[in-house]
């Protein structure tokens, strides 16, 4: 059992407490989903439960945290590590062994267990996470989901009673997420207490016994999931994502909030139908109207690419034409070739075969630098894009390199900062900002150059809903000015709402290309790429109507009903 009493914590060198007078209890064998907007103190709380706070991080701690009766302040991390296992967001940052079993052995070795016990611990942990055939596999050969499961196994081998996970799905594709969630479910079924911090509430809510929401260092909601989603306003106010099933339950007037598709099916079979006509909120389209262009912005003709002659093709015989002003989303599992395609359009990779044309220029004859100001690219980790002392200098860097006049430069920098909502951060060091803010700075630093093409690799990864929505809406608005946008995503709802066209990739090939609403109907295609259609679509099928998001569902059904 975890017991937190009046816990307050202030990081060293800071005057404002990150956690303020927080009290909570997690019973043995429970599975708690801890969520909240970026920077609300979730990760800090996890570190305190694990004992890293205050033992490793210092700072000022008040109140008390007890793990199965052990006061974390009076118990050393060595002892606590046998009680609580902590998993971080990015498995690549915590896995340091080159062979799977070595990583799992690290904890038991540190506990000085005899070799026989270490072997038993490894076997048991790898079996629990479904990697029992992977003992001697190289860690670099694992997929994202396998790596995260390995990270879980590396703490399970120490037989902890409690597992805490800090956004374990953030870096994963749909296949990886499914694997990790299945593992978490199994562990919890076996009696392990689990605390899961996650923004992707819609994917994990149905697993949880309780949902806790934090805001500014305090818990503002602590309920079992059904009761939590009764208070949908709290989620919306904090910009958190509500599972579609819960939203649909509200919209369709279910007596009890449904958490799964099965529950919604039951309701529909019982005769419940949408009774609410589309409100002004529901009816308003997410994206503005715009005119189609016939001009080509990006083109691939018979493009194949391989990183290494001994390895297979990452892109294979791709033919693709993207028009100016189009917003194109790119989906598929990790390793399907999405990022490689982006890098080709930025002239950072040259095709092994075929031709890539960017704004009517053949990239084989181009240096990436020659596309500066015409093509902007943002990678998944914005940290790698920021290097100036202040946000203002960061956003001004590109225009300065392109020799914009001083007046124009200032104007473009101000416009970009205002559009991304970071004008108030102009004198801050970009690297000191939160993940969401850093991404906005990175995007502002691209848009200030007024590129004709913007390429984004997973712009919504690790962002809360309000952040990712406003960001994609802004990009869609840019497309109205003729700017071409190509972004990769694992979020099918984002693709539906904010793109004109969806490309689905699998094993280096485009297996579907067309309007998102058309592709969602292709069940075989989605299955191949491990994509699931939104809940609204499935409900629409049950109701005999075409729906791709909740607004469609409520509006259509109300009209037809």
């Amino acid at each position: 059992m975890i017991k937190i009493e009046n816990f307050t914590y202030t990081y060293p060198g800071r005057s404002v407490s990150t956690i303020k007078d927080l009290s909570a209890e997690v019973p043995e064998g429970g599975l708690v989903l801890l969520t909240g907007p970026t920077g609300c103190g979730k990760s800090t709380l996890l570190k305190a439960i694990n004992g890293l706070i205050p033992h490793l991080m210092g700072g000022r701690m008040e109140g008390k945290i007890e793990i199965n009766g052990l006061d974390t302040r009076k118990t050393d991390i060595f002892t606590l590590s046998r009680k609580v296992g902590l998993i971080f967001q990015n498995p690549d940052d915590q896995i340091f062994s080159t062979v799977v079993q070595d990583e799992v052995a690290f904890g038991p070795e540190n506990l000085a267990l005899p070799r026989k016990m270490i072997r038993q611990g490894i076997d048991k942990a790898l079996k629990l996470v479904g990697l029992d055939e992977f003992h001697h596999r190289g860690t670099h050969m694992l997929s994202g989901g396998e790596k995260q499961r390995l990270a879980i196994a590396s703490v399970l081998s120490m037989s902890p009673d409690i597992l805490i996970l800090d956004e374990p799905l953030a870096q994963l594709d749909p296949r990886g997420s499914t694997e990790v969630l299945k593992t978490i479910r199994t562990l919890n079924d076996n009696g392990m207490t689990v605390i899961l911090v996650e923004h992707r509430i819609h994917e994990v809510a149905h697993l949880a016994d309780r949902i806790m929401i934090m805001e500014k260092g305090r818990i503002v909601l602590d309920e079992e999931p059904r009761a939590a989603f009764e208070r949908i306003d709290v989620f919306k106010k904090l910009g958190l994502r509500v599972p579609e099933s819960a939203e649909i339950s509200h919209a369709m007037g279910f007596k009890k909030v449904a958490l799964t598709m099965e529950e919604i099916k039951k309701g529909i079979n019982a005769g419940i139908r949408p009774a609410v006509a589309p409100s002004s909120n529901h009816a308003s389209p997410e994206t503005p109207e715009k005119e189609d262009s016939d001009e080509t912005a990006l083109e691939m003709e018979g493009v194949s690419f391989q990183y290494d002659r001994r390895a297979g093709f990452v892109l294979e015989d791709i033919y693709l034409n993207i028009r100016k002003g189009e917003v194109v989303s790119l989906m598929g599992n990790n390793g399907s070739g999405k990022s490689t395609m982006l890098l080709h359009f930025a002239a950072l990779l040259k095709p092994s075969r075929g031709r890539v044309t960017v704004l009517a220029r053949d990239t084989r004859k181009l240096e990436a630098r020659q596309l500066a100001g015409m093509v902007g690219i943002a990678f998944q980790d914005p940290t790698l894009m920021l290097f100036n002392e202040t946000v203002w200098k960061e956003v001004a860097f590109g225009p300065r390199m392109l020799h914009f006049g001083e007046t124009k430069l200032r104007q473009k920098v101000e416009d970009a900062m205002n559009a991304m909502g970071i004008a108030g951060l102009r004198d801050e060091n970009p690297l000191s900002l939160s993940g969401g803010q850093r991404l906005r700075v990175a995007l502002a630093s691209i848009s200030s150059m007024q590129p004709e093409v913007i390429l984004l690799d997973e712009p919504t990864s690790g962002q809360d809903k309000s952040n990712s929505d406003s960001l994609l809406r802004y990009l869609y608005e840019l497309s109205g000015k003729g700017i071409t946008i190509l972004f990769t995503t694992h979020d099918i709802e984002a693709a539906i709402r904010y793109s004109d066209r969806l490309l689905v990739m699998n094993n280096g090939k485009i297996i579907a290309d067309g309007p998102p609403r058309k592709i969602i109907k292709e069940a075989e295609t989605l299955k191949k790429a491990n994509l699931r259609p939104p809940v609204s679509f499935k409900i629409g099928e049950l109701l005999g109507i075409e729906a791709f998001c909740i607004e469609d569902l409520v509006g259509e059904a109300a009209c037809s009903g």
Partner: protein
Amino acid sequence: MFRIRTLTVVEKGDSFIYRLDPRTKLLLLLSIGTIAISLDKPEHLLLLSIFLIPSYLLARFELNKYKVIFLIVLIGLWGMVLSQAMFYRQWPRTVILTIIPVDFPVLGRVTGGLYLYKEGLLYGLAQGLRFATMIASGLLIAWTTEPRDLLLGLVRLKVPYGMAFMFITSVRFLPVLVSELFTVIAVQRLRGADTVRLGRHTLRSAINILTPVLARSVKRAATLGASCESRAFNPNLPRTYLRELRYSRIDIMLSMAAVIAAAAIVVIKTLFWLYCTGILYFPWLRWMYTIAREL
């Protein structure tokens, strides 16, 4: 053109060099380094470096690795030989080629004449071969040994676990670092930065490139540190190991031969130096002084 990332990947193989115990490899590395520093004559250093060639051929690396090592050795040798041959300042020195005569207009007067010296060339050759031998032996071991085996080897050779862990972890994350470096350069090029041009902006460009890479490394180090701590890592406490290392007869013989050879050369050179400086002289060691003079 070869890919720099090739440098950081450990190969898998079954030949002799892969099967050696990591302790043997580390002792060989230490011994070769010691011998390379102790020897002065280019011909002896050349022999030492030739000794590495069969091991490289047996390792059967991918072609890119051979290209990399060839290029490093070539650049190292070329740079050392040329710079020492041109700027050798010790006496005696013998001019073998005049590049700029002292009476050449302007440049002759400014440089005082530019020549290639025989003694400088030989000295540069020795330095270059020393550098090449050490780099080649280091890479040979890095490319044929899994980091976990190196870690265990270092620990068994009594290197404190904390230090060994730190060293191996930094080696392990080298490929990630290289990959991030390329990403940063790519991003900056697309924002109009000229990241490869040498000139007055070179330092600024280097800072711009290193800042995000270092920031990411610091973040990664913090996560890794927290992850290790929460898995009971404590370098000061005793720990056990899953893997066992076993010395074969070949390992024992090679390790002994390497250590004895390195120790013998160091002792001979030290005694010779004591004799030359007039500190210590044993008449019955005259045969050894003769050998030392030739090394």
